[in-house]
């Protein structure tokens, strides 16, 4: 993990203009992804994780969104690129898998056309070559009878198959970075596992870095190398996946882990209530004084309400933004 990272996000700010003031959806987030690495971004709905992902490809409509900070891809700030240069990166160097396979495919174009489109656009393939490649891609993502399927329309495929098609589209041009925005959320559990296996398998073959956006800690534990935890538009913790699960430093991360049901948690026949994080995410329309999590933190003190804790190393490669997070002696 040395040299220039594949993607580095520096002090990203994404604000949305609304009739009653700016909504600070992302407020000063920084992280980096190395080539070939899988980084998970975790947080509950509305924490800014999807907005972060969409701002990397500049898919947010501006206005109402306004993006500040820097998003460096292979050293180049994407926010400074003209739109034409940005289009050469989209679907080619960086591609996305969206959450909703049912609605993310165009209903009136064939599957083959939708896969072949990026190949024709970015690699200059002919219609026939693109279709041949589309058949290969469908085979790669495990769709049976690819020669027939390539001429079918999305409504003729199941949800799991459509997500496989989305993956085929995303990987067609062998991107360096794949952004997967809740790729399994809309699928049922058995299909989820298949899709995760597929992504891991393809990552090994294609060698793409993956930015995995999810609220599912089970998925994180299975596929991620490192984890960024976001809360209310900020990064509150970042750590290698094993460190995070072994010793979460931020109370919000601990809360998230407590909210995951565990097999065998039912003892003596009595159902134990799943731990939850009380309260709601604060409104992002006002400046938050003190720690963003203060309103819901079980260990909150006056210090938290007054001064925002800085993101600081608590252990090697382990950052957290909490005044009371335990700190290893080894931490720099």
């Amino acid at each position, binding site marked *: 993990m040395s040299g220039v990272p594949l993607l580095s996000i520096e002090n990203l700010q994404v604000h949305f203009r609304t009739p009653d003031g700016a909504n600070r959806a992302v407020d000063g987030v920084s992280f980096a992804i190395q080539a070939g690495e899988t980084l998970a971004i975790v947080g509950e709905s509305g924490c800014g994780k999807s907005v972060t992902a969409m701002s990397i*490809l500049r*898919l947010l409509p501006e206005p109402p969104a306004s993006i500040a900070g820097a998003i460096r891809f292979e050293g180049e700030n994407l926010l400074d690129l003209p739109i034409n240069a940005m*289009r*050469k*990166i*989209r*679907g*080619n160097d960086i*591609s*996305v898998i*969206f959450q*909703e396979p049912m*609605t*993310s*495919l*165009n*209903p*009136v*174009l064939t599957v083959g056309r939708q896969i072949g*489109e*990026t190949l024709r*656009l*970015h690699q200059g393939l002919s219609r026939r070559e693109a279709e041949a490649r589309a058949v290969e891609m469908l085979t790669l993502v495990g769709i049976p009878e690819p020669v027939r399927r390539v001429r079918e*329309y999305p*409504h003729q495929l199941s949800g799991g198959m459509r997500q496989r098609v*989305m993956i085929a*589209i995303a990987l067609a041009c062998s991107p360096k970075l794949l952004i997967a925005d809740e790729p399994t959320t809309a699928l049922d559990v058995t299909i989820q596992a298949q899709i995760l296996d597929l992504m891991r398998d393809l990552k090994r073959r294609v060698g793409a870095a993956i930015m995995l956006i999810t609220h599912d800690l089970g998925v994180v534990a299975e596929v991620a190398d490192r984890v960024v935890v976001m809360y209310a538009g900020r990064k509150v913790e970042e750590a290698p996946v094993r460190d995070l699960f072994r010793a979460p430093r931020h109370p919000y991360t601990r809360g998230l882990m407590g909210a995951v049901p565990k097999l065998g948690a039912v003892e003596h026949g009595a159902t134990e209530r799943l731990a939850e994080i009380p309260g709601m995410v604060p409104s992002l329309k006002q400046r938050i004084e003190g720690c963003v999590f203060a309103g819901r933190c079980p260990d909150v003190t006056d210090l938290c309400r007054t001064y925002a804790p800085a993101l600081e190393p608590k252990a090697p490669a382990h950052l957290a933004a909490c005044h009371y997070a335990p700190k290893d002696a080894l931490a720099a």
Partner: protein
Amino acid sequence: MLGYIGRRILATIPVMAVVGLFVFSLLYFAPGDPAAIIAGDQATPDDVARIRASLGLDRPFLVRFGEWSWQILHGDLGTSIFTNLPVTTMIGQRVQPTVSLMLVTLVLAIVVAVPLGVVAAWKAGSLIDRLVMGLAVLGFSVPVFVVGYVLAYVFALELGWLPVQGYTPIEQGLWPWFSNLILPAVTLGLVYIALIARVTRATMLDVLSQDYVRTARAKGLGQGPVLFIHALKNAAVPIVTVIGIGIALLIGGAVVTETVFAIPGLGRLTVDAILRRDYPVIQGVVLLFSFVYVLVNLAIDLFYTLLDPRIRY
């Protein structure tokens, strides 16, 4: 699919029967006596009665309707009371100008209105959007004859760019034919353009917020392919539907437009026939228009299957 087409064609029979009955009774009950008009001011009541008997107008309603329907099924629309020519011949003489006018208007309207609607939706809320929508409201609210006279005054009389009125058959050259049709087509097309542009904008606004449009952008496609391939194809069904419904607007508007621009088409024929109470001609023209309208909408229903693979009959 073939079964569906067959059923749909069969279904036009009762529709046309109702239209026929309606047309026939409307004129049967309408005030004004063709016999009296033919006979003229000097005629005695006996003369009028004789003429009426010779035209068969003194017989009962159902007998006349039955006879009329039988003739029509044999391709005979009757004979004009005034010119004594077969109605089919009279319609035949007038078809070309009207068909030309409608086709030119149709093409013009689609070519202008669809891109306007798409751009308005893409730039929703902008100055362009407000301009397009303002134009649409104007198109709806200004009567056809006003537009016609204003255009003729400005472009034909003042600027002298285009002929004031009349019609040149296409056999006499493409440009003379086309130049005579430009002003009438713009006049007739304005309402139609307004209608199509509004529906295009509304449908596109909805489509542009769909997930698959975001997918298309994420692939690196430019604005053109995103709008006109990924989005417009999804918006096509409502747009094509309104184009079909709008054919009725064209038929109604053609009557006025042909009068304003002195085009010897079916619209003029209709107006003249109504003024003279030339029943067979009125009936023939109305039946023809209804039949065309039913056929166009059948064609559009079938066209849906080409636009949207989810529609199958």
